[in-house]
């Protein structure tokens, strides 16, 4: 495949990335959210692979593989296992309804494009378009974290933010040193496991993981 068509492919995948993050916001079912997250991470690993192939940076290939194993397979399975064990309700509960959150998401995407408009002229990289997409992903992760009631979906938002930062690292600097990448991924894995443990503990202590109930924890 020519370099030109790989660039087009990567752009196409970037658009799909935005769509899947919107999919996390637009889904009323928890299982759909988790699947969209898996899809998001899959696209991310594909983009990493494409950039690795194009620029002959093989440590990125290892990154891609690790991302795939961890974020596309392991973490969603952990999520599914937790949601089965806890018996959390299938629907995602949030403070604002779906059309309003979609509307906010669109505004956040505008903001991220507006904010990075100056970077277009300054950068010599052909993949400058990923900066706004990455920032948009971070914003959307923040949106998910702040508008959802259940702890499990808040962690999903956090992971989405992490995905966005990973994307930024990949496309802006063509990957951080492998050691740093490994460290981050390990952190994420440990964080998820700890989240799982805490959610069990929270549930057994408070009989529910609705963060609304936790608002009574004040002075």
């Amino acid at each position, binding site marked *: 495949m020519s370099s030109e068509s790989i660039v087009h492919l990567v*752009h196409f995948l970037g*658009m799909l990335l935005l769509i899947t993050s919107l999919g996390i916001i637009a889904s009323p079912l928890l299982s759909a959210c988790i699947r969209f997250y898996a899809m998001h991470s899959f696209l991310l690993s594909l983009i990493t692979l494409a950039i690795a192939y194009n620029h002959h940076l093989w440590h990125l290939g290892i990154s891609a593989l690790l991302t795939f194993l961890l974020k596309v397979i392991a973490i969603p399975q952990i999520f599914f296992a937790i949601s089965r064990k806890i018996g959390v309700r299938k629907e995602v509960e949030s403070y604002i309804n*779906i059309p309003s959150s979609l*509307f906010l998401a669109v505004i956040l995407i505008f903001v991220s*494009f507006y904010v990075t408009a100056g970077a277009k002229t300054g950068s010599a990289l052909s993949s400058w378009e990923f900066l706004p997409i990455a920032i948009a992903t971070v914003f959307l992760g923040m949106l998910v974290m702040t508008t959802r009631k259940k702890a499990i979906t808040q962690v999903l938002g956090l992971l989405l933010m992490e995905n966005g930062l990973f994307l930024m690292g990949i496309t802006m600097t063509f990957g951080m040193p492998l050691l740093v990448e490994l460290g981050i991924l390990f952190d994420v894995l440990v964080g998820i496991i700890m989240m799982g443990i805490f959610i069990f503990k929270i549930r057994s202590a408070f009989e529910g993981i609705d963060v609304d109930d936790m608002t009574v924890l004040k002075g």
Partner: protein
Amino acid sequence: MTKFLLLFFQWLLLVALAPSVSWFIKRMKAASQNRRGPTLVQVYADLIKLFPKEMVVSQTASWIFHVMPFILLASTFVVAALVPVLWTDSFLGFTGDIIVFVYLLGLGRFFLALAALDTGTTFGGMGSSREMALSSLGELALLLAFFSLGVYAHAFSFAGIMTHFAAHGPMEVLFFTNLAFGAILIVTLAETARIPVDNPATHLELTMIHEAMILEYSGKYLALIEWSHQIKQLVFLSLLANLFLPWGIFNVPTTTALGWSVLVYLVKIFFLAFVVGWIEIHSAKLRLFRVPDLFAIAFVLAILSLLGQLMFRG
């Protein structure tokens, strides 16, 4: 003269092919339910058998009831003449663009909704009110998606957009237009009364929209309405096929080119019909007040498509 004949042939193909798309989707759904489904002849026979039947007309109905099927089918015929099928040009291509397309369909819908109220039944009012409310939302997303395509192609007529897309490579077209494709696909599902918006095979009060409006119709009027509905479905699929997969459109009027383009067109149409059928099989009908959420998604896709045109093309 040959051009006129070719364009007329294009229109005729559209109008005659319409019921077979419904047949295809019905066969798909039947296969998924372990049934056999109707044969191709059956679908055409279902339409033709209605003509010799006597009609039962409500006593409350006025001339609007009688006039509506004609206006609906006539406006659908004109819309079918507007849409490029085998060629970038169409019979009425010289006098149409996106807005004309949407508003001609609106003319048919206006009288359909009126005729539903004409019979004085609750079903009619219900179907009419739901249809007009939902189609307003759908029109917003549809117009914005089309306008984003127009901004990309610097032309707002179907012929112009098609020519522009046909001149660019597949990857580039798909990248920029997949969002608009998603938006228009969602609106197509709504306009053709498919699950998840409406169930075309039910007569239960809770789930009808389109069927509720034509509940009182029988005989030849019903045949006209059903046919126009099928033509509208094929028109939308043709637009999706020709705008987003603009290959195989013939430029040179030779018979081989014509045959080839007919074949490609059929492949594209039935592929899209397969997609629609697949969505129908795998979705459940949405609660009525969840349908605006679906339109919100379509609207967001359309806005992102517009944003994409401007951001990436400068």
